[in-house]
Every structure is written in structure tokens, then in C-alpha cells.
């Protein structure tokens, strides 16, 4: 394919991905509200559409039509860039997820690294959003989120290194082939646990939602945001949850591998399972305190992931 053709394909797939993420957010928000309601013996949204199924669509229309309030003393440029830098990387990271054997947007030879690196930009967006708002709560929220984000990024990366080690490749498609017989969760259970827990922290979800702790920080870095800009933060959370789950399914659960059903369906089933666990945890666990959060990352997960790495390498060597 010519370079301009490749560029056009990228543009097109970008449009498709953004649209799909919009739809996905609508579905996931509803799923979260319904599952959460079920767990708390409520019924959840019921009024718009059958069993409230159109509630999120109505909310989305409302959000884009809402007034876009910006605090008078906020930094206009940074205030606008913040939500963009949070939402865009989450969607960009989807580019390397293989949804089926031939169905991957781009099989990069550094796909795994790309998936970890691109969402790393989020931390700039969080800081920028918090700082630009000219609000003490936002500022503190931004600082805390970035501290949490970078702390959990390391054990997460080290857990992924073990998978790369075993597969012998950084391409996401090769990972899929490497697990055609045994999914890596069997060989690397500790890595899977580290990945799953740290991923929750990376997307700022319960029990790691201290940046948004309502009782102390109002809404953290997005306190001052409203309307569509606020919706972008929401989009990022659900896109991030989906991407982290899909990537987890790919790394440890064999991605699209499975009998009878087409690969896309298998990947969505496994991803859905992980997303469900994320929602389940949200409605089950209380929130960590800021100091507990940092202690857990640095004094538990980091040593654990280092030991796990060396152990996995040694076992792999001994078997090979």
C-alpha cells in the first residue's frame, strides 16, 4: 500500500475507533449502573427506553448540549488540552489490539511497548487539567493522580515484561500465536494478578480512585469541567477500562484463541469478563487512603514484580 493510502487507512480507522469508543462508553456506563444496582439491590435507570437502555444516549445528548463553563481565572489553553490528553491516548492504545487473527488495526513490531507507552501521556493531561482549573481541589487531585499513575505504571510494566520474555516478541499478534496452546495465565499467574490490580490503578478506578475521592477532593482534577469536556474524561475512563481489559485478555487469557466461535467473539467474551470484575470490585471495595495507595505500590507490588520477573526468567531457562 502506498504511504498516502496508509495515511488514509489510519484516518479512517481513527474515525471508526472514536465512534466505536463512543458507543462502547454508552454500553459500559449502562452496564456499570445496572450491575451496580443489582449488587446493591436496586433497579438502576428504568425510565428512558425499555429497562433504561437508552439512558446513556439521553445523557450523552444532554452532555454535548450543556453549557461549557470555564472558571474565570483558569488557563484557557491548558484547560482545553487537559481532557484531550486524557481521552486521546486511551483511544490510540486500541490500535494494536488484535480483535481477530487478521483483524488488527496495526500490527506494530513494538505493539506491546506502544500499548504501555501511549497511555503514559495521560499523566500529562491529568496534571494539566488539575493545574489549569485554578482550583485547590483540582490541583491536589491532579498531583495525586499523577503520583498514583506513575507509581503503578512500573509494576504493571514489569508484569508485562514476563509475558514478552516468554513469547519472545513485542508484537501483539505474535503474543496471540504464542498462546495457541496454553494461555499465559497458567504459566504466569502472579504476573496476571499484578497486571489486573495495577490496571485498575492506571484507569483511576475503585479502590484506586483517590484522585476523585468525593469526600475530600470533590471530583479531583475534573471538578471544574462540565458538558462535553467532562464527558471526555468519562470517555477516557471507559475506553481505558476496555483497553486494559482487552490487553489483559490478550496477554494472559489467550486473546481471540478459542474453539468454535470466531476470534472477535472470544476476545469480547474474555474482555467482558475482566470488565465485569472491574465493575464488581467497584461496588464491593472501599477506597484506599493516599498513603496506603503509595505504600502498596512501592513496598508491595514493586518488590513482588521484581521477584516475579527473575523467578519467571529462571523457570523459563530451566524448562527450555
Amino acid at each position, binding site marked *: 500500500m502506498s*504511504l498516502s493510502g496508509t495515511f488514509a487507512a489510519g484516518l479512517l480507522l481513527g474515525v471508526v*475507533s472514536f465512534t466505536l469508543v463512543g458507543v462502547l462508553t454508552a454500553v459500559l456506563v449502562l452496564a456499570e449502573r445496572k450491575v451496580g444496582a443489582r449488587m446493591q439491590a436496586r433497579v438502576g435507570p428504568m425510565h428512558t427506553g425499555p429497562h433504561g437502555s437508552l439512558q446513556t444516549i439521553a445523557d450523552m445528548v444532554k452532555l*454535548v448540549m450543556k453549557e461549557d463553563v470555564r472558571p474565570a481565572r483558569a488557563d484557557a489553553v491548558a484547560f482545553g488540552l487537559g481532557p484531550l490528553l486524557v481521552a486521546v491516548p486511551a483511544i490510540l492504545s486500541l490500535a494494536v489490539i488484535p480483535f481477530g487473527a487478521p483483524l488488527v488495526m496495526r500490527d506494530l513490531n513494538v505493539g*506491546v511497548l506502544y500499548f504501555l507507552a501511549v497511555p503514559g501521556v495521560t499523566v500529562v493531561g491529568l496534571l494539566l487539567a488539575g493545574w489549569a482549573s485554578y*482550583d485547590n481541589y483540582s490541583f491536589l487531585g491532579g498531583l495525586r493522580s499523577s503520583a498514583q499513575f506513575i507509581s503503578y505504571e512500573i509494576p504493571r510494566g514489569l508484569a508485562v515484561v514476563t509475558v514478552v520474555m*516468554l513469547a519472545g516478541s513485542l508484537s501483539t499478534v505474535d503474543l496471540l500465536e504464542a498462546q495457541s496452546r496454553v494461555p499465559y495465565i497458567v504459566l504466569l499467574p502472579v504476573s496476571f494478578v499484578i497486571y489486573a490490580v495495577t490496571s485498575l490503578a492506571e484507569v483511576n478506578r475503585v479502590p484506586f480512585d483517590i484522585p476523585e475521592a468525593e469526600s475530600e477532593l470533590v471530583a479531583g482534577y475534573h471538578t471544574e469541567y462540565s458538558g462535553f469536556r467532562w464527558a471526555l474524561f468519562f470517555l477516557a475512563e471507559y475506553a481505558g477500562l476496555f483497553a486494559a481489559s482487552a490487553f489483559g485478555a490478550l496477554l494472559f487469557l489467550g486473546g481471540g484463541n478459542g474453539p468454535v466461535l470466531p476470534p472477535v467473539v472470544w476476545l469480547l467474551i474474555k474482555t467482558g469478563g475482566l470488565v465485569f470484575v472491574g465493575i464488581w470490585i467497584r461496588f464491593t471495595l472501599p477506597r484506599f487512603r493516599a498513603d496506603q495507595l503509595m505504600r502498596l505500590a*512501592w513496598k508491595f507490588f514493586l518488590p513482588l514484580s521484581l521477584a516475579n520477573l527473575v523467578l519467571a526468567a529462571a523457570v523459563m531457562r530451566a524448562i527450555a
Partner: protein
Amino acid sequence: MGGNYLSDVVFLLGFALAVIALPVITLAVFGLFRPRFPDVLKGQAYESGMPQASIPRRPFHMAYYNFALVFIVFEVETLLLFAVAPVLRDAGWAGLGEVAAFVALVALSLAYAWRKGALVWK
């Protein structure tokens, strides 16, 4: 394995352009329909309804600095491990020994930071 480097970059440029442009366009288009009533009170920062307690542009806690420094050490370590990981399988016991020594060396810096109390959030 992936395609060639140049076409990968060109593809990602297109992809990123679309993903960045769409929210900007959406924001601009709906800007034509949105209500807009600026107001002095509305323009104030929301700090639970009270007048702003202090100026948010101020020095912040020292603990962030410690964590940022330790972060750089381990982030670079992780990156270097990513470079080695794909070939480690065929690198034999010597390769394993080198990686283990590297990890042990960086773990030593973790022990040092731990001992010095840099990992305590206060």
C-alpha cells in the same frame, strides 16, 4: 511481525490526527447550539461553595519529588528490560545471569530509598 517502520508511523499519524480532530470538531460544532451565560459567580472555582481558601499556584508537598525520582530509576529499568526480554529465551544461562544481576542492582536502589524513608508518604 509488523510492517516497515515508515508506514507504521504514517498510519499512526493518520490515526492520531483523526482521534484528536474528532473531539475538537464535536466541541466546536455543538458550540453553535450550546447555551452560554457567563456569570461572575459561575466563573469562580468550586471549593464546596466557600470563597477560595488559597491560591492554587503554590509550592506543593516534597513527597512528590521523592517518588518522581524513584519513578525515573525504575521506569528506565523497565524500558531496558523490554529491550532484552524478547531475546532472553535464546540467551542461555549467561543472559539470565546478566538480567538477574541488573535487576538485583536496581533492587538495591529500592532498598536504599526504602531505608532512607523516601517511600513513606507523609
